[in-house]
């Protein structure tokens, strides 16, 4: 796996905040939590980086499932990302609408155990100046030959 890019775009300030630079990371889903804000609902995935410079770091990826119509695009992006993650790890079945994104993450957690999953993470600066990480791709990587 290539080392994630570490350029001018990603300042030391961002590192201090705990955000990762955009890139691919071998990572493991640790747990899923509900996401509730005054206007949105969804799930938070706690993900642990398993290899590379950021090994051991835990990050949060937020997946918004419901909210005002102004964030339809974000909901579409997050639903597609979860679908891609489910497919990559070979999750069995589909979550119910009632279980929502948190249910999808639980199925992903079940199916992803003992698999080497590579998450492609992008970072965008919000209007408020906060770095937001989000999932843009998932693939299952073969174990190294030496394993």
């Amino acid at each position, binding site marked *: 796996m290539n080392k994630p890019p570490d350029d001018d775009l990603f300042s030391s300030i961002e590192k201090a905040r705990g955000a990762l630079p955009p890139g691919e990371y071998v990572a493991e889903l640790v747990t899923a939590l509900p996401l509730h804000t005054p206007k949105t609902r969804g799930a938070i995935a706690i993900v642990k980086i398993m290899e590379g410079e950021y090994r051991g770091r835990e990050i949060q990826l937020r997946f918004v499932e419901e909210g005002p*119509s102004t964030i339809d695009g974000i*909901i579409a992006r997050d*639903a597609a990302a979860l679908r891609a993650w489910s497919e990559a790890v070979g999750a069995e079945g589909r979550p119910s*609408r009632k279980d929502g994104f948190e249910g999808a993450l639980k199925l992903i957690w079940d199916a992803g155990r003992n698999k080497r999953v590579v998450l492609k993470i992008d970072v965008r600066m919000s209007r408020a100046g906060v770095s937001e990480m989000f999932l843009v791709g998932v693939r299952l990587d073969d174990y190294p030959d030496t394993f």
Partner: protein
Amino acid sequence: MTIPIPSNLPGFAATQLGLADPGRCAVKRLTLQPDGSITSSDYDNGYEWWFRLFDAGSDFDRMAHELRRMARLDRVILCMGSPKPGLDLSTPHRRLWARSDPRENTMITVPRAWIAIDVDDAPVPAGLGAPGRYVEGAIYVRDAFLPEEFRGATMIVSPSARTGLRGPALLRARLWFLIDRPHELPVLKRWTRGLKAVVGVGDSAIDQAAQPIYTGRARFVGMADQIPPQLWAVVVRGSKDRVGLVADRYEPKVVEIERKMVATLAVARIESGIGVPSSASGGDWRGFLETTLGDDLGFFEPLTKGIGIAARSGDPDAEIVASTLALLSRRADPSRIAQYDAAWIARSLERFRAMDGRTRARRDAALSSLFGKEA
């Protein structure tokens, strides 16, 4: 003496886009009316474009030659961004660079070592706004309006549709400079936004990955193009070929503008509710436009953001159009009033609603795909 350009610095690199939609063009049409006034049509909304990498290097003459060539092409534009890596350039694409799902983008932000500064009705000494002297007007603007690092710098000057038509003492033109190191486009955008707010020239919209920089000469109906072809792009030699851009020069001003914009936008969105008719609250998009239109941000950005909020407000189109026109008539000059007319506002409303419809459909499809048929 000209300071030599280090050969390893990038030059005028961009993406050249050609309209794939038949029957549309990427130039304005200026029509002379019987009463002597000139009306202007807006650019067509191109949907799909052919992408081609463009690089004139650090050679001003070559870039000027390319600009003069592109001036004859009414379906070609430049964009500062780059095609997304892996994008199939053998087929046309939409210009997408700011989607909520970045995988959908077709263009990306990349560092560039050049900048184009749009000069829109800058006051110049009498005579320098005339068609045959607009290059002198541009030199005046470079040295009198732009920051000190631009003084005496080599540049290319090219005309816009209304160059030479705004009277002898107003200049419209575009100034092209090489800068001393590549900057990310958001950095250049912030700089240009600050320049506009502080000295009144520049258009930060073009410093975005897929925002068109229109290069074709307008179509003139009932009148001749006042700018002769040899002046469609002119190299003005200076004492240095690269500008040492002070990228954070206007940062305090830009932060101030953005704080104001975010605060006003937040109030507008909260007051408009989400998909709820806003006429009861009365504030929202009206308040946003009232606060921002013609202020530091100029006209285009507040108008598009304000109309975007209005499109979701549930207020009748006629009311949105009438209110916006009334505000424009108080704040904008006649050419902007003509540019942002009722049809433009109505088209913008339609465009925002169509975009919302497509996003909604995409959201439903993604949820169905994740949950299955029950979603």
